[in-house]
């Protein structure tokens, strides 16, 4: 079981952070194009889900999976979007993605970025502390192992 990579976007579609742990195949396009593609796809898929929903929608789009990987999506009310690609063994990662956004004990995005007045919101996150802590957090997840199952 493993985590392949993780994207964090802000409300304007700028990619704030990208982390990779276990990606065997690249997309074949530049990182910038990849971020745009990811953001654009999510925007469309969320709009699609809410339009086509046969019931009143509460949370909207959460995950999709293929035969090889699963994409988990989490969005805050302020438009911060966290996307994590894992292998198929991982159940719903919503709580984990919420943790990456917040928490009192690990406090990643909120603690290290929002509360740091020198970090300009909306730009690529340059805080080493944030990157390191995120990396440690992902590696410590129960379903993470350096080699994909």
């Amino acid at each position, binding site marked *: 079981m493993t985590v392949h990579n993780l994207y964090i976007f802000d409300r*304007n579609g*700028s990619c704030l952070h990208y982390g990779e742990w276990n990606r065997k195949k690249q997309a074949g396009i530049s990182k910038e194009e990849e971020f745009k593609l990811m953001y654009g796809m999510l925007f469309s898929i969320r709009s699609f889900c809410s339009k086509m929903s046969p019931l009143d929608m509460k949370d909207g789009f959460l995950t999709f999976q293929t035969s090889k990987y699963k994409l988990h999506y989490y969005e*805050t*009310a*302020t*438009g911060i979007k966290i996307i994590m690609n894992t292998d198929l063994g991982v159940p719903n990662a919503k709580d984990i993605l919420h943790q990456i956004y917040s928490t009192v004990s690990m*406090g990643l995005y909120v603690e290290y970025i929002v509360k740091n007045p020198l970090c300009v919101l909306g730009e690529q996150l340059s805080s080493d502390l944030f990157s390191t802590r995120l990396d440690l957090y992902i590696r410590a997840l129960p379903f993470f192992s350096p080699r994909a199952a």
Partner: protein
Amino acid sequence: MTNAELFTLTYGALVTQLCKDYENDEEVNKQLDKMGYNIGVRLIEDFLARSSVGRCQDFRETADVIAKVAFKMYLGITPSVTNWSPAGDEFSLILESNPLVDFVELPDNHSSLVYSNLLCGVLRGALEMVQMAVEVKFSQDTLRGDNVTEIRMKFIKRMEENLPAGDE
């Protein structure tokens, strides 16, 4: 838990310094609103992280969350929500007490100073980040002789999420 007195004194020092720097109540009010706005746009993330409140369905729910969760979390008070306009787009928050103004009296030469104007900016900034444009102002202030402190909040519009500009 931070010391409430330190917070009140710090805020007082801030307003005093602004008064010295700008020498004009209206300008100070503007600066307080601006500073509040900058606080609000970041504070909302902390609030969402700690309270696990999801997106509000309508303005009434927003009002309740502001009064019962946000004010409680950050200032330790729970204002009451009243005076809804018939259209449901305006309401008042009545504050029985205001931690920012403990020990404060306004001198006569500062009668148009809105001492706690920072709060208006905070609310405006925070709500803007969750796609709501609002107007916030103090309609009554105990520091200026009124019986209660009242913040009036008006919903202007919902801000739509826009797709980032592509270059294709």
